């Protein structure tokens, strides 16, 4: 097992030179849902890239399009109502959107795999853990059922499940939530993917279990060298796991920066507002009642109506007239730090 993982790492490094530096490039991705009530622009012209071995977090609140982005990458959107109306998703230079389904199946679970939020609904309740982990190995690596099972045991050990030989024959309902998420991770890692897409992998878990899973994911990343796209709404998790962060709002990418820059010098008022409204443990050690939380007024706009101007303008304290008529484009405000805002500099001054 260990040997194969090491070779995967070499692979990933070797492949890196093959294309530029990016493992995955998402370019101008627009995913719309065509519903009876109209067109929902769930993801609207979003671009970002992930280098080999890098962890990129995609953050935003419900309905910002972060999960639809991940499903678009995986090719798991239900069509109709969803349709990718424009853009490219390139894995090592190969555009996944042009691949026929039969080719995409060879990519999915093999080169890119995914961890979902709800480990109970994403595991098959009538198959044993071993069968489910083994399935990808039989499919992609042509192992026999028997070989697949022994590999499944190794994988369960890798994700620190005790008594792996026994657990491999158990069903999902016999495991706790944390264990199930470990099984999901084992499944995702079975074929040593180059890219792991983790969609809110710890949101359904308790904090002490979340701590275990985050620790496990960091460990495994060290061992396997997979790149990770970490989709989450939890800024604490972002701060801990990510190297680079993409912030989404109303289907658009509004900011992208290395993690420390983003937290310390946000260049988009939405990011700044989000960071202000999040509660930090131990921060209210002073007198209660004196401090009000900073809130972002109002609510997220409906994605059914075409948004004129900056989507955040109605909730933004920096907004001026032209914010309501012209949409700001994403610009590099500082090295490697992009934001789509006319008032970035004013915000940066204020923050200082």
């Amino acid at each position, binding site marked *: 097992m260990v040997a194969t993982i090491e070779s995967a790492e070499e692979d990933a490094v070797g492949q890196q030179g093959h294309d530029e530096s990016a493992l995955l490039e998402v370019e101008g991705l627009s995913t719309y849902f065509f519903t009876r009530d109209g067109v929902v622009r769930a993801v609207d012209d979003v671009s970002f890239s992930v280098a080999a071995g890098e962890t990129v977090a995609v953050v935003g*609140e419900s309905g910002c399009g972060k999960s639809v982005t991940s499903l678009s990458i995986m090719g798991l959107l239900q069509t109709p109502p969803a349709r990718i109306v424009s853009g490219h998703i390139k894995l090592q230079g190969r555009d996944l959107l042009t691949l026929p389904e039969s080719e995409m199946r060879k990519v999915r679970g093999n080169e890119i795999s995914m961890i979902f939020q709800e480990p109970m609904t994403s595991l098959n309740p009538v198959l044993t853990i071993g069968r489910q982990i083994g399935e990808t190995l039989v499919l992609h690596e042509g192992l026999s059922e028997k070989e697949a099972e022994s590999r499944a045991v190794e994988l369960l050990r890798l994700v620190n499940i005790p008594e792996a030989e026994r657990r491999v024959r158990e069903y999902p309902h016999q495991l706790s939530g944390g264990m199930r998420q470990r099984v999901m991770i084992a499944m995702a890692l079975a074929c040593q993917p180059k890219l792991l897409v983790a969609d809110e992998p710890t949101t359904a878990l*308790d904090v002490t279990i*979340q701590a275990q899973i985050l620790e496990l994911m960091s460990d495994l990343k060290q061992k396997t060298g997979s790149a990770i796209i970490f989709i989450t709404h939890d800024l604490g998790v972002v*701060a801990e796991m990510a190297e680079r962060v993409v912030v989404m709002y109303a289907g658009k990418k509004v900011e992208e920066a290395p993690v420390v820059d983003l*937290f310390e010098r946000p260049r988009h008022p939405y990011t700044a507002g989000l960071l202000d*409204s999040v509660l930090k*443990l131990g921060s209210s*050690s002073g007198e209660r*009642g004196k401090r009000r939380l900073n*809130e972002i007024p109002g609510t997220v706009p409906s994605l059914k109506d075409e948004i004129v101007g900056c989507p955040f303008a109605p909730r933004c304290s920096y907004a001026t007239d032209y914010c309501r008529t012209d949409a700001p484009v994403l610009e590099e405000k500082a090295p490697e730090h992009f934001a789509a805002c006319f008032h970035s500099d004013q915000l940066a001054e204020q923050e200082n």
Partner: protein
Amino acid sequence: MTIGRIAPETETPLLEVENLKKHFPIRKGLFSRVVGQVYAVDGISFSVAPNETLGIVGESGCGKSTAGKAILNLIKPTDGEVKLEGKRIDNLSGAKMRSVRKQLQVVFQDPYSSLNPRLRVGEIVGEPILNFDSRNRHAREERVIELLERVGLPADAAKKYPYEFSGGQRQRIGIARALALDPKMIVCDEPVSALDVSVQAQVVNLLMDLQQDLKLSYLFVAHDLAVVEHISHRVAVMYLGKIVELSDKHSLFSDPLHPYTEALLSAVPQPSPRRKPDRIVLKGDVPSPINPPKGCRFHTRCPYAFDRCYVEEPPLREVEPGRQVACHLHDDAEGTKGPSLPS
């Protein structure tokens, strides 16, 4: 003022909970024989003073929501007493409990399932008034509008249906309904955990403003430690049906005494990328409340457990004024505070 309230013993508590237990029988077989019990809440005691917020935190299955429901008498407690303003309410019949409900209200977690989708917001918020108050229709409608404005919704919200509102606005509707009868105490069961962070802040601010203006008491049940820290005066930490630590907010969060509290606090990811977590990662899962471990219930996961913890259950006792903890490490009878906790 309510700031920094730490000594509720000095005045008559509004709510007193004494050795509250709720066990759910497990039935099996043809004759539904009782084959076991789920010890969901297994003897908890605390009090809440007027105008105070007591937070109850813990992970799934620790019994915090069950405790809330048992206090509200929505489920019958197995044992123990619940007193509101000195009068027992846990043994009241449905009809007698009705009059208590005016004093004791609830806000639920899910703003989607806790509002009747077929009623207009005005009817939802006005329903408690209709049930308990003999005001005429006009006065009732006025009161509804007053309540809606109080929670930051426009007056014309009364004519709309719940589906027309976002999650945060629905939670405001739920709060307006809870306020309709001028209660003294509101049990908030995870009121902000279904909401996005930016909206969470709005609702937390609203709850705190209402407390100040209306002199409310809250029992605030939640799993989010940062939210509980922000809103509470005192905090109780539950593990497997028991309170393991109960203390004023400041001491609990800055200097946790129980190893579980300590681990829980260290497990929360902090939104500061430079500070890499110095974390105590607990091994294993929470044991089942059907068959809780003997001795201290936390000993199976406790990094400091010693022989006594396996056999003897530590009672919740006061170790410093206003600070209660159930842990042998803080047992004064040993003459020390036990093996010192590595920090």
